[in-house]
């Protein structure tokens, strides 16, 4: 029986991340021995592919930009085709600390989807105004849908167990915000068990969270719409879920 890490695929969607992707891959492979790391190049125009290969990752090249959702679907499909049980999504910009991964994988024993949540107090992640309201509204609705308390629903740091991998390989949404909001709704409605654990986030190498109130308001609108449509769509069943658990 291969070890837990050997049965795990780290998927990193990468779009023009040549500056950091090599370091992130190296860190993942060093801190998580035995793990496989797949960088999905999302139509980058820079040297991301070469840098990721140098770091020792497998690289899937998308011919054009599909967004995080499309890139993640490639990861889920690859995991399914190559017999990986678990998929962990890690950002290629280095803001997720791979040392949290073993803890997330441990939680997959009893859950199908583990979110790594940025908690207040960890790091300097603060939000105000419409963006904060958006986060509050989203966590309220999604907590109710997922029947568990979720505080950071837009976190891209998440681990999926075998059932979620099978579900997502087929149904991971590719729309804007689909990879965060709608994927949670799909998982919750397919009766996947969702939990969150606190993780510390590092400051992104290049970029400060936007505080432009207009952008934040637009974000609130789009997020609300994405959530509404996600809840209106017919739920997708998880096929032959009984024989797994």
């Amino acid at each position: 029986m291969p070890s837990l890490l050997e049965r795990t695929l780290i998927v990193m969607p990468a779009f023009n991340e040549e500056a950091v992707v090599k370091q992130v891959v190296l860190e993942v492979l060093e801190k998580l021995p035995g793990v496989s790391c797949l960088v999905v190049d999302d139509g980058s125009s820079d040297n991301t592919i070469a840098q990721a290969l140098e770091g020792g990752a497998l690289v899937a090249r998308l011919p054009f930009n599909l967004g995080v959702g499309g890139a993640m679907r490639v990861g889920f499909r690859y995991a399914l085709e190559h017999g990986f049980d678990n998929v962990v999504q890690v950002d290629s910009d280095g803001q997720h600390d791979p040392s949290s991964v073993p803890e997330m994988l441990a939680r997959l024993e009893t859950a199908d989807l583990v979110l790594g949540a940025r908690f207040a107090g960890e790091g300097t992640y603060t939000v105000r105004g419409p963006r904060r309201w958006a986060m509050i509204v989203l966590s309220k609705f999604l907590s109710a849908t997922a029947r568990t308390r979720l505080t950071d629903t837009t976190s891209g740091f998440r681990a999926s167990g075998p059932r979620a991998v099978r579900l997502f390989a087929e149904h991971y949404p590719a729309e804007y915000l689909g990879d965060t909001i709608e994927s949670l709704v799909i998982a919750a409605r397919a009766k996947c068990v969702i939990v969150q654990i606190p993780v510390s986030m590092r400051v992104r190498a290049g970029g400060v969270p936007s505080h432009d109130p207009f952008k934040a308001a637009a974000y609130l609108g789009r997020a609300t719409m994405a959530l509404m449509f996600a809840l209106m769509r017919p739920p997708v069943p998880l096929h032959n879920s009984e024989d797994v658990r």
Partner: protein
Amino acid sequence: MTVTTYIFGVLSALATLAVVVEMLRRRRLRERHAVWWLIAGTLALIIGVFPGVLVWAANLIGVEIPLNLVFFVSVAVLFLVCIQHSAELTALETKTRILAEDTALHELRIQALENAATPRPHD
């Protein structure tokens, strides 16, 4: 209505139908996309040849000014065509996305097969 406007109406409808049929004939337009245009062209031709039909239809539904019925039907047809195009576009986008995912996965597979087939000089 003068004779000139009568002829103008009939010719316009015929021209519309001719364009749609010609494009269908050259396979530049598939039947499923041409249906609404064919219906619109045929309606325009009927009303062009028998203007009384329009007045009769307007009275039947209770539209006071028959011309308003023309505008309403035109807008409805355009609306349906637009909706159909948006749906087709969505379907096409989904298909290209799946194809893009497939090429990425195939490329990985080819890479793996090539690595297995050609022994590396350092091994």
